[in-house]
């Protein structure tokens, strides 16, 4: 029954969006974690979403969202000359993560809006199913 599938579809979207919210939280938390070595510096992460299809029928109804993985952003790290910093390297430079707080905030709002939309879909589907159960009463 298609109405039952909605619980899987919207549920997968809730998982995907909360993972996106998690990466945003981790990016914002680490926005100021400076290090002296570019190899160890935190890099902004983001999840990659893809659509799951019912079986192999690509033209058919979509089945939900899957997170293919979490990738690190390519944008270069910012180098700062701060010789007094305890983490500075021998040349006096520290490396800042490539996190853009403005971008992260926008991402956070987008993720929470999408989450809400899917919760609404779940609630409406639940009502539809419960009404169907009382058919003929």
């Amino acid at each position, binding site marked *: *029954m*298609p109405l039952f599938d909605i619980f899987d*579809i919207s549920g997968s979207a809730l998982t995907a969006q909360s993972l996106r919210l998690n990466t945003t939280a981790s990016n914002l938390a680490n926005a100021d974690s400076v290090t002296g070595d570019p190899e160890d510096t935190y890099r902004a992460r983001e999840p*990659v979403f893809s*659509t799951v299809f019912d079986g192999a029928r690509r033209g058919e109804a979509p089945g939900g969202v899957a997170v293919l993985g979490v990738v690190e952003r390519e944008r270069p790290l910012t180098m700062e000359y701060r010789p007094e910093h305890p983490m500075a390297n021998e040349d006096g430079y520290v490396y800042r993560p490539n996190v853009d707080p403005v971008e992260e905030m926008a991402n956070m709002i987008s993720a929470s809006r999408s989450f809400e939309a*899917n919760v609404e*879909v779940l609630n*409406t589907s639940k009502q539809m199913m419960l009404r169907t159960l*009382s058919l*003929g009463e």
Partner: protein
Amino acid sequence: MSTKLNELLGPQIHTLGIRGRRAKILAGNIANADTPRYLARDVDFEAAVRSAVGRSTMSGTDARHMSGNGLTNASPAYRIPTQPAVDGNTVDVHAEKGRFTENAIAYQIDLNFASSRIRKLIHAFRGD
């Protein structure tokens, strides 16, 4: 016999199934609102109803023929995007939410019609 009973229950029995399927497709669109290269889909409701009703009145010429059960195979079509995103996604979440709600209300209207038909039938069977 089951076909006859379907006729008694009215067209809502078919439209309920189609609306349920449409709800699933629209839920998929909303779920994939942030998926790159996802193309929004929808079913042509009128064509789906026509195909469902046409199938249910098909005459069985053999006892082993199955009767139409109101389900349809009309496959979903891609929506024409109004504001396609840079990542190739064509879902307009607000429009999809509107359609989903509209579909849910129409589903409940169909349920009401079907319910009252069932009540009438039970009333007629009992004869009291």
